[in-house]
């Protein structure tokens, strides 16, 4: 084989290998579960095996956030308005975390049915509103809940 052909072949094999690795990584990431998280209803229906490390996604139920004053421990309930799952977490919460907001938590269920989260991410919905519009909407009696759809589908 001529040297320049061999060089070309080498490059092609290199690309093919690179592409396979990329596809492999993607497939691996997707195989675990194309869905990033389970909904509280799916958890309630027992779709997740016990002792499994998984992610759960839902809204933070209004009035359920209880934080300890002397530590970063926080307890709250996540809901998809059908089922509720209590969550315990210790750590820094993202800026967007607040009641009525969507979240994704990663961790596992303990024996008492409380989800022990090692990580909590905030999920933003597709709605943008300036504070003025938000205030006007609140004043006219339309609550924020009417505009923030359930985070899960």
């Amino acid at each position, binding site marked *: 084989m001529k040297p320049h052909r061999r060089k070309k072949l080498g490059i092609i094999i290199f*690309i093919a290998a690179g592409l396979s690795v990329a596809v492999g990584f993607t497939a691996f990431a997707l195989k675990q579960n194309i869905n990033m998280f389970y909904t509280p209803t799916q958890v309630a229906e027992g779709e997740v095996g016990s002792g499994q490390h998984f992610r759960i996604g839902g809204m933070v139920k209004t009035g359920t956030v209880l934080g300890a004053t002397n530590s970063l421990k926080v307890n709250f309930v996540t809901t998809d308005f059908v089922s509720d799952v209590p969550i315990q977490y210790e750590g820094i919460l993202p800026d967007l975390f607040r009641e009525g907001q969507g979240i994704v938590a990663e961790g596992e269920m303990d024996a008492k049915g409380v989800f022990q989260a090692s990580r909590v991410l905030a999920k*933003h919905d597709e709605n943008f509103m300036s504070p003025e519009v938000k205030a006007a*909407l609140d004043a006219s009696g339309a609550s924020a809940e009417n505009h923030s759809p359930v985070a899960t589908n």
Partner: protein
Amino acid sequence: MWLWFSKLGSPKWFYELSGKWLPWLVAAMVVFMTVGLVWGLLFLPPDYQQGFTSRILIVHVAVAGTSLAFFPLLLVSGTITLVWRMKLADMVAKNAAILGAWFSFITLATGSLWGSVMWGTWWEWTDSRLVSMLFQLFLLLGVISLRSALEDSETAAKACALLSIVGCINVVIIKYSVEWWNTLHQVSSPVSMDTQSPNGPEFWIATLVMIVAVYLFLSVSLILSTRNEILERERRSQWVQDLVSKS
């Protein structure tokens, strides 16, 4: 129609015509970019939850949306190259792949800069929107390296056309990933005409201006690099020699 088509394929004709369009495209691009950036940085209202990070999203959405145009463009130009052997289509394809990789990278980077403060994470391997966009970047890098390895042979054109088909499938996956699967990434924002409702004109007009600006930038950059390609590949032709001696 066919006369027009074969004329368009002539590099000389394209060079002359694009030379006439360029000043207008550049002027429009400057206007839209300036309006978009000044609006984005000074006038765009904060979101009641995200604060001023909503300003990141008008840039992110414009670049991300535009980045989805590259694989369809590569597929069309690849097919034209294979079927009609039009040199111009191949020149466009070569530069579109490079620019597309830039677009994909900027999409990922701007998204990360938003996610790091809003989601609480820079990157999630389990989010299908994020991973499919990264896959688009890898595919475009694949197209670029295939091309540089095989130069402008028939095999390169065929291999790139094949990758473009995969890329177009991936574009559909990117687009609908947020609807088909549970993702951390939000779904596309609807547009509302009502100034007193979410996603009103105060947000989407600025985004629209940025989208137009980014599309104009894509056209200008692609035309500039295609013209360079023409000069290089046609350097032996009489019209390029005339052009050089005049410059």
